[in-house]
């Protein structure tokens, strides 16, 4: 009995006090403003204190000079290939071949994935992060010749993409005279192709990777492949000197 009476009593008591269970509020006015976070605003030094150790470590790492380039690595190009695209794809191909010598060609990024040019001269870690800020992985595919043709025709239809180990001509948005790893393409042969996980899952509408014979994550980030390549050039006393080489033409 008590368990029933008690809540009624409390309710009656609170009703007596407030007229209802709690005060109700009505919205009567709204004022809106936006602040631009510019140098006009002072800084909170406690925040800087928090991030300074992170910044110091990061800056030291990012400012490390890891190589040199004799040419501007630029994505700007009137051709279906670009110096930056060729550098990127060749770097990944070189690094991948060390792990998996059977690889026939690589398609490690789309043109849109080339995020920043690299100026002539010293290459710092930060340059590579700006070029490739994303955490994409490299994936190796065993593809049927017919799927390889889809990949190559996608590259042709989009007026060229960064590739290495692959050469062809674009004619009416289709690929012709396809050469893979130095040999003429054969639609009846299976090929080993490395792409980023982004491309492989259809990013930028790329096609051909949906039904592979097999696929395997290499365990190498795209960016790490680029960093390794630049460092190896330096270790060998060489500078990057990428050129346009007619790997993809349009006639």
């Amino acid at each position: 009995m008590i368990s029933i009476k008690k809540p009624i009593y409390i309710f009656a008591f609170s009703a007596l006090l407030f007229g209802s269970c709690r005060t109700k509020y009505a919205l009567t006015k709204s004022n809106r403003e936006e602040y631009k976070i510019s140098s006009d605003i002072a800084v909170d030094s406690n925040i800087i204190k928090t991030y300074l150790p992170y910044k110091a470590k990061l800056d030291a790492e990012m400012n490390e000079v890891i190589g040199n380039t004799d040419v501007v690595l630029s994505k700007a190009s009137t051709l279906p290939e670009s110096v930056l695209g060729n550098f990127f794809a060749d770097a990944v191909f070189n690094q991948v071949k060390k792990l998996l010598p059977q690889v026939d060609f690589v398609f490690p990024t789309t043109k849109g994935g080339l995020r920043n040019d690299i100026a002539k001269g010293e290459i710092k870690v930060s340059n590579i992060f700006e070029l490739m800020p994303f955490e994409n992985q490299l994936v190796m595919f065993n593809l049927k010749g017919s799927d390889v043709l889809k990949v190559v025709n996608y590259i042709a239809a989009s007026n060229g993409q960064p590739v290495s180990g692959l050469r062809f001509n674009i004619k009416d948005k289709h690929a012709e005279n396809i050469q893979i790893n130095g040999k003429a393409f054969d639609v009846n042969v299976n090929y080993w192709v490395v792409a980023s996980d982004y491309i492989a899952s259809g990013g930028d509408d790329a096609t051909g990777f949906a039904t592979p014979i097999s696929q395997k994550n290499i365990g190498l980030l795209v960016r790490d492949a680029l960093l390794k390549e630049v460092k190896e050039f330096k270790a060998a006393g060489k500078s990057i000197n990428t050129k346009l080489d007619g790997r993809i033409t349009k006639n």
Partner: protein
Amino acid sequence: MEELQKINRRNFIKVGGVASAAAALNINSLDAFANGRLQKLTILHTNDVHSRIEPFPMDGSRNQGLGGTARRSALIKKIRAEQENVLLLDAGDIFQGTPYFNKYGGELELKLMSQMKYDATTLGNHDFDNGIEGFYKQLPNANFPVLIANYDLTNTQLSKSTQPYKIFKKGGLKIGVFGLGIQLKGLVDPKNYGETQYLDPIAIANETAAKLKNDYKCDLVICLSHLGYAYRNNAVSDKVLAASTKNIDLIIGGHTHTFLDIPEDVKNLDGQITTINQVGFAGINLGRIDYYFEPYKAKKMKVGTPYLINNKLDA
């Protein structure tokens, strides 16, 4: 809606013929203010900060010198010193965008947000960039809740790490805040979101907002949305959400990095105002909305009485 927008340009909203009620209210509010019963709530908000710890570098780019956590924190502290009831909210995509994320995995972003005393955030698509595990690993650095109502995370590592909504009590006011995320399929690598199930944001929003407003009697309902402001196709966006729901007073948006000149007031399913705001990205801006409330006795004032809107703060 067109009319709403047009009137909004004059910084004033009237709904139907009840403008006189608003005027009357304004007079009442003087009494309420004198009695110390008028309540003011200040909402501060960010979205898509994308690991922008420091201001943009002075490299000639469009946003050079803008943003930065140290300035944002100083500004927030100043506002908190002036205002009694402040909620600091974020609409997701805390992660990715500078090497701070690549190197530290989001640890610093969350630590700084904790230091600034954020009250809540939601999940953006880029917050999955190091996978469910990568987000989970950094959560000990966040001493604020992650609100997400339309992702079913039951079968993931995050099953106990998020909540659909939270009710905040500030100066006698109850504020219900819930979160909505974008469809991850096609946007995020499937291995990064794993078993996360995306649920219809409109249905979930209506359900959650009704619960907050009607069952929990919240005085204000806020949605932290990472759906995006608007799309050319009919993909669900904040504009679609606002027009297809009721009981939401404010949508703090993100994802599309939209710089709105002023917040947008949309007529919702109830004919009431649902405000959408989004403040660009990278912490270039801090949004602020002050809401004023006055107490009333039950049934004297109907739900959704029109209220005054100014696109400036009171002097």
